[in-house]
Structure formats: structure tokens, C-alpha cells
């Protein structure tokens, strides 16, 4: 279809049919505000004659109280289809046209109160002139109590839904408990005022999802492991002045540290042993800084000092050093 700008009369109407009937040129226009058709007669042709295909949907709107209609072109008439008769089931939240003649699309977003989802539909239309519609984002689409939780559904402005969910809502029959009710067990924490020799604090993520910590004693401050990254040959042009036959490419350097804890009760040992299986372990410093470390596999030793007190040792790998290597 040839593009003619008169098809769309700004956002107020769309001309959907232009024909010659009874000796007159007739222009059929659908006005969005009144949702009605007006026919204009003329004795002179005003542009190319055309008609858009039967069944083309040119408007979708919600009629109060809760019914959605589509406007469909059939010949020179515009008929309405009652899309949804169920009271309160669906709500039109947004309409938008896009594209250009003749490849336009009418986009429709409808909120389904039963499924609590938005149903999105595209209708091809050769004349994409709909002025657009979007309900305000403070319009309540649905408010319901799910147990004691009150869920309120709103349009997010983009054809989607935002949910305001308020658990324990008095609007849903929840009775606010009295003040000064204990909600956790009493967790006893022992306070130590003396530090071990060469203290190293570790904090680790335990299997429950919380963080535990312990102040260990460093049994061996550092052991350094280095590893060469290989050698490359050096061309020799003058044996008298040459200093080397090969160069070392680089070296890597890792440090590890042996930690221990003494005089542990069985329960303390059980708590500490979680560090062995945790993949998230940090060394914490008194100034608030920290670094990630890992426990070396196979380094754990458990020593029974007596029937009630035990000692443990294990190694941690510290972060690799940066060296002058590629």
C-alpha cells in the first residue's frame, strides 16, 4: 500500500477507508476518543483510494466496568468485538502502536487477575496510528491476601507488573505480637582476653550459611615455595664476553602458613573443623583489612592431649606473590 500521510490524523483519528461511492469520494475515519466513525464526502478525489483488509484491529480499549473490546474493520464499517465478558478477570494496562505503514503493529498488554500475569498480543495493522494508552503506575490492578501476606499488583509502566508484598498484614487478619518477645535462643559467647602466640584470625563461611571465626596460633610463620617457569637459550656471539648460556623466564612464589589451636573441647574442635570444608576462608587483621586464603588439602592433624582436650594443626595457602615474570 502506498504511504500517504493522511492515514493518521495526529493521535485523534485514523482514516481506514477511502473510496468512491454513489458518485462521491468518501473518507472513513475512526475517532479514538469517541470510538466512533465519521464519513466525510467530497466531490473531488483527495489522494489514493484504499481500504485496509477486513479483520484488521485498529483499536483496543476497556469499557467500564470490566470488559475489553477490540475495534475491527470490516469493509467500510468498524465493528466491535467483546473480547472478555468475565467480570473482573482482566484489565487492559497498555496499548501502543509501532512501525510504519503498511507494516505496523498494534501492541496490547492485558493483566489477567487469575493467573496474575500479563498477556501480551501483537496485531498486525497496515495503519499504526493508535494514540497509545498506559494506565498510571499507582493504579491497583489486584489486591489479595495470601495467608497473612497482602499482595498488591501495579503496572510498572512498561507493560509489566510490580508487586508490593506486605507480610504479616493487619489487613489480612494478622495480629501484631506484643513487644519484648524473645525470637532466638540465647547464644552464649565466651570472651577470651588473652591472645595466643603469633595470632592469626580466620573467618569462614560455614555450611549453615553463617560465618564462624577463630584466633589460631601460627606454628610456622611462613614457608615459601618457588617454582621456575622455565629457561630459554641465549645466543652466544662472543665466547669471551658471554655471561650466560640461558635465561630463566620467571619464577612463581607461594607462601603457606601452619596454624594450630590447643586445649580445645570436642565441641570447639567440631566447630573449627568446618574451616577444612569451607571454600570461602579469610584471614582477618586487626586494622579491619582481610585477604582470602585456602586450607591445604591433607594438611590437617588432630592430636588428643587428654580425654577432654585436643589440639589441631593445618596449613593455609596465602595469596600468590607477584613476581617479575610474564
Amino acid at each position: 500500500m502506498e504511504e500517504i500521510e493522511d492515514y493518521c490524523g495526529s493521535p485523534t483519528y485514523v482514516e481506514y477507508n477511502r473510496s468512491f461511492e454513489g458518485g462521491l469520494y468518501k473518507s472513513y475515519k475512526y475517532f479514538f476518543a469517541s470510538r466512533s466513525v465519521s464519513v466525510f464526502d467530497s466531490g473531488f478525489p483527495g489522494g489514493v483510494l484504499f481500504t485496509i483488509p477486513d479483520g484488521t484491529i485498529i483499536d483496543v480499549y476497556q469499557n467500564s466496568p470490566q470488559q475489553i473490546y477490540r475495534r475491527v474493520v470490516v469493509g467500510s464499517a468498524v465493528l466491535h468485538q467483546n473480547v472478555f465478558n468475565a467480570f473482573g478477570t482482566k484489565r487492559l494496562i497498555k496499548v501502543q502502536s509501532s512501525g510504519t505503514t503498511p507494516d505496523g503493529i498494534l501492541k496490547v498488554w492485558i493483566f489477567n487477575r487469575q493467573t496474575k500475569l500479563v498477556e501480551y498480543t501483537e496485531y498486525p495493522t497496515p495503519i499504526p496510528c493508535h494514540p497509545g494508552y498506559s494506565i498510571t503506575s499507582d493504579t491497583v490492578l489486584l489486591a489479595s491476601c495470601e495467608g497473612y501476606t497482602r499482595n498488591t499488583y501495579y503496572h510498572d509502566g512498561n507493560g509489566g507488573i510490580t508487586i508490593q508484598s506486605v507480610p504479616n498484614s493487619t489487613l489480612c487478619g494478622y495480629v501484631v505480637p506484643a513487644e519484648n518477645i524473645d525470637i532466638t535462643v540465647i547464644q552464649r559467647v565466651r570472651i577470651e582476653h588473652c591472645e595466643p602466640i603469633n595470632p592469626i584470625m580466620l573467618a569462614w563461611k560455614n555450611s549453615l550459611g553463617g560465618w564462624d571465626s577463630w584466633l589460631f596460633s601460627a606454628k610456622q610463620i611462613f614457608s615459601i615455595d618457588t617454582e621456575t617457569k622455565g629457561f630459554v637459550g641465549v645466543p652466544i656471539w662472543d665466547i669471551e664476553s658471554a655471561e650466560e648460556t640461558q635465561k630463566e623466564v620467571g619464577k612463581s612464589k607461594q607462601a603457606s602458613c601452619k596454624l594450630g589451636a590447643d586445649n580445645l573441647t570436642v565441641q570447639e574442635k567440631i566447630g573449627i573443623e568446618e574451616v577444612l570444608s569451607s571454600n570461602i576462608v579469610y584471614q582477618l587483621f586487626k586494622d579491619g583489612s582481610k585477604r582470602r586464603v585456602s586450607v591445604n588439602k591433607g594438611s590437617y592433624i588432630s592430636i588428643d592431649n587428654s580425654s577432654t582436650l585436643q589440639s589441631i594443626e593445618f596449613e593455609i595457602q596465602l595469596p600468590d606473590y607477584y613476581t617479575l615474570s610474564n
Partner: protein
Amino acid sequence: MVTIVSRPSINIPSSPYNIVSRYVAAYNPVVYTFNFTDVPDAAYSLRIRVFEFGSNTLLADMNVRPIRVGNLRVDLSRYVRSYLESTYTPDFAGRINDSEEKSVLRFYITYQEQFIDGSTGALVNDVTNYINASLSAKQLGDHYGQNMRDYTPFVKDGFFSKFLTKFETPVKWNGWAFTISFIYGEEIIGQEIKRIENYLNINKSFLSDSETQLDRSKANKINWLKISDNVSESIKFIDVKLRTGVAVGESYVYQGYVQDGYVEVR
């Protein structure tokens, strides 16, 4: 036809109101059980989608095929846990509790039957039964299985949730940072929450106590709770617990709530 027979959450009949424990350990199976009353052919399937609660972001999209009538279990843990992560970053500036941002994923599912001719059944949205998956793992034989019921605070006579520690009695060294973790669940956000500390001497006799309010904006996550530091030499134990305060009304809104600037156009 398909219906949900069970979810990872558990219902606990209680008075004056029933409790739904929604927190589950994401490193255990996170299981939904569906019951199929009809399996018309080999191509019949159930499309399950996982969305983040609140933002409605699609997290996973899958099809499962029942081979016969009856129950089918679907484990979503590997989808859910990929959105969780943990780093040690507590910030106690001006507060005594802080949240681990990606420690809990709140999600819900939708499901829809898919037939061989391309048609689909009704879309079912289970958003009101959303689940909170925490970065946790429970062990065989644990009470309530993979549900974190014992660690989720509720206001219920006679019930006291546990802290997320593997120590029976954690130890704090004076002068060193120390925290204890807990689930700051939505079930207690309608009120102020206070940390109560009782200070005991070496004989475990009471010396003094303190009461400090928590920061409510850190709710719906696993929290670090700071324990008082640099206490006097006479204090050898601190008994810590959480207690409700005054009601604060229904004022909290999920992130992504109503956007400004949208008006009706005609």
C-alpha cells in the same frame, strides 16, 4: 492435568496464625513435586519457569516430561544456587548488623502444560508461594530436612530460632572483630528487633546487660550481628539473643516498586 503436591516451604499449623517457613538451603535439593493425572503422549511436557520475586526477572526456563501418571519431583537447586555468592564484607558504620547482599534468592515458579499439537494449558503462577533460597547446606537427618525452619525467626510462643553457627559456644577474642550470623527473615520485619546482651563473669553470674536496636533495612538476607567489643576483664561470657520491639507498620516495599513519570495518554 497437573497440580503441585508439595513445595520446598513447609506449613506449620500454629496459633494465632499459621507459619509458612520459606527459607530453604540452596545447596540441598530444592524440590517441587507435581502430580500428573494424565500423560497423553510422549511429547507432553510441563514448562517450568523460575522468576526472581519482586523484580520478576526470568532466571530459568525448562521443560520436564513425565513418563507416566503420578508424581514427578523437580529439583531447582542448581538453577537457584548459581545466583548466590558470598564474600566477607560486613559494614558496621552506624549499626550493629549488616546483610550479605547475595546470600538469599527469593524466587517463584510458573508452570504450563505443553501438548503435542503446540497448544498449551492454563498458565499457573505460583508467585504467592515464593521461596527464599539461602546459601546454606543442611545434613542428613537434620530436623525439617533442607528447610531452614530452625534458623528462621518467627514470633511464636515457645519457639526460638538458632543462630547460624557451628559452634556450641563461639569464642570471641577481645580486640578482634567478631560476628555471629542469623537469618533476618521477613516474618519479623513488622517490628523493631533488638539485640540483648547479658554480660556474665567467670562464674556465669549476671553483671549487666545492654539493648541495641537492629537496622531494619538489612532484612530479608543473612545478617552479620556484631557482638560488643573491648569489654572489661571481668566479663567472661556474653549471652546474646534477639527480641521484638515496637510494631513499625506496613511500610516496606520491594525494590522496583512503582516508577515515576508514567501518565495516562489519550
